């Protein structure tokens, strides 16, 4: 999670403890949901009958500081207690260690809105399931500095990975690395032939590291270019989702009516950062909500969050998220509001027509 954003959102729900994060440009969202069974004791609400389920966000670095030295933690810590004390304004992490030693960390936290990415794996045309090692070994061939990678479904259901080359680059001066994985390297391949998506490698690598360590099979759900790609890991007590925006296809017709809004990502929080592998906690980021009034977005159907509820600050943040040079900025649509992140673009109220986006000349 720390590879993605600078802040960690913790949300206890009835179905488990959710830890999630989003990056600054709102183009990557990850969540880990730990089912109650994962814990020895899980009490989401307070002792009172009508207690509201509290959620909070903390700085990723502060939280990571508690779990600084993993090897020694494994040897010395027996139990970890996590308590949210809203009155004291503290998130308490208490480690019970060898020799009766207790280490108590009282972290400051901020109250926050619910961080929720809306996506629907059911609506994705293609999916690939396989051991994370296969993909991890594949991405090793790409340079660490590579920003985006293209995943492609080839003939015979082969899966290809290629580094994404920007349009302006000179073909004679660019090195292209391409590799193909046979269908039988994976457990399941159900892809639309010829389908292709391009996404950010950095955040994906973070998930791969965790996936390899956890030994869980990784599933990739994707649809058309521009629609988010969803990576999931699942077992009985853990559900992990990584949602990345994908590069939209320049040839796509911007006039296409949006499909029924099946997903909206209302990220109300700022960046997430840091190590997926240090968080064994999964957060659930499923928000499979039925569409109603989806904002017109040609390549990525978004559902408008209710304008009365949306935080007016979010629209400003959208502009701030348009940091030049970050891959999602170029042509990625914001996962969350369907508007392209470019500086100077007036932040669109989600209910606006797509036409406003066309005038950006992004296509």
């Amino acid at each position, binding site marked *: 999670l720390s590879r993605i954003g600078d802040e960690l959102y913790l949300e206890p729900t009835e179905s488990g403890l959710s830890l999630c994060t989003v990056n600054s440009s709102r183009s990557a969202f990850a969540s880990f949901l730990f089912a109650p069974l994962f814990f020895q004791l899980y009490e989401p609400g307070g002792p009172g009958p009508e207690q509201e389920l509290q959620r909070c966000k903390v700085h990723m670095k502060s939280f990571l500081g508690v779990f600084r030295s993993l090897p020694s933690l494994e040897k010395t810590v027996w139990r970890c207690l996590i308590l949210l004390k809203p009155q004291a304004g503290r998130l308490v992490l208490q480690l019970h260690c060898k020799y009766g030693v*207790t280490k108590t960390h009282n972290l*400051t936290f901020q109250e926050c809105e619910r961080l929720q990415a809306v996506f629907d794996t059911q609506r994705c045309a293609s999916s690939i399931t396989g051991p994370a090692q296969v993909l991890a070994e594949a991405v090793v061939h790409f340079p660490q500095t590579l920003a985006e990678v293209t995943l492609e479904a080839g003939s015979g259901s082969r899966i290809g990975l290629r580094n994404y080359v920007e349009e302006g680059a000179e073909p004679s001066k660019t090195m292209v690395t391409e590799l193909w994985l046979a269908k039988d390297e994976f457990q399941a391949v159900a892809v639309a032939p010829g389908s292709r998506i391009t996404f950010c490698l950095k955040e994906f690598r973070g998930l791969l590291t965790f996936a390899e360590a956890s030994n869980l099979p990784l599933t990739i759900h994707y649809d058309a270019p521009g629609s988010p790609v969803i990576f999931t890991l699942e077992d009985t007590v853990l559900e992990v989702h990584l949602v990345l925006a994908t590069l939209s296809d320049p040839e796509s017709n911007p006039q296409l009516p949006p499909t029924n809004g099946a997903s909206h990502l209302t990220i109300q929080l700022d960046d997430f950062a840091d190590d997926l592998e240090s968080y064994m906690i999964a957060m659930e980021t499923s928000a499979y909500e039925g569409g109603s009034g989806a904002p017109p977005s040609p390549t990525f159907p978004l559902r408008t969050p209710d304008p009365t509820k949306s935080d007016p600050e979010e629209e400003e943040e959208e502009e701030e998220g348009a940091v030049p040079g970050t891959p999602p900025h170029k042509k990625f649509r914001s996962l969350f509001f369907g508007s392209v992140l470019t500086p100077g673009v007036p932040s669109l109220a989600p209910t606006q027509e797509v036409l406003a986006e066309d005038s950006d000349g992004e296509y």
Partner: protein
Amino acid sequence: MPFSAQPPGSGERYVLAASLDNARHLSSLLRAVHFRDHATCFATANGLRVTVEDAKCIQANAFIQAEIFQEFTVQEESVILRINLSVLLDCLTIFGTSSSPGAPTALRMCYRGYGYPLMLFLEEGGVVTVCKINTQEPDELLDFDFCSTNVVNKIILQSEGLREAFAELDMTSEVLQITMSPDKPYFRLSTFGNAGSTHLDYPRDSDLIEAFHCNQTQTNRYKLSLLKPSTKALALSCKVSIRTDARGFLSLQYMIRNEDGQICFVEYYCCPDEDVAEGEL
């Protein structure tokens, strides 16, 4: 190879002459107190004491008793000199710091007295290095006036339990707060950093605690940046004794066993941070 007891080629008396088969017995201890460049060395018939101070509120002493040396002769009642500890350590480790059990560096140390440099002869595998380090006028040293009769609280711990804790202390905190009490939380180390506060609690019946003599609940704060160097001594030691007196002065005594199984001591004294009133538990 041991050196001859006679100083090489001279009939002059040395006020201090010492020989040590393995210079590491000295260098590792000196490193445990090396947080400033200069140190004051005291030599008496009992052995050598090296003192380093900082900010007029912290003092560290390394004791190497005469028995550790193969030869230790002091001609006067006591010999005092001030020396650059960084340079001394560089010389003692001139053949490298990696430990190779087959070839220890042998040391001979000679000092003619006030105004003369400290001479070091180091030998490893037949190669001899001669070092002359200028000495300086010794400074007035702090006297913490810490005596056992004034001790209010005392805990003796196995160092293993504290090592990680000290290494992982939140350095964004200005102070380290130490609470010692006959009641809960018994022994607590606290920091107050940017992320929030952290408390490390040791119960009195923990296996790590060898002796627990707390008479009064005391909470004192000490500047973390000053105490942090004591982590080196802690890393070398097998046991540590933590004592506070009525004024809140802290004494940390580390028992260090060297490669030959001999015991040496390093102690740190620290006075409480006066900027802050007694901290909350």
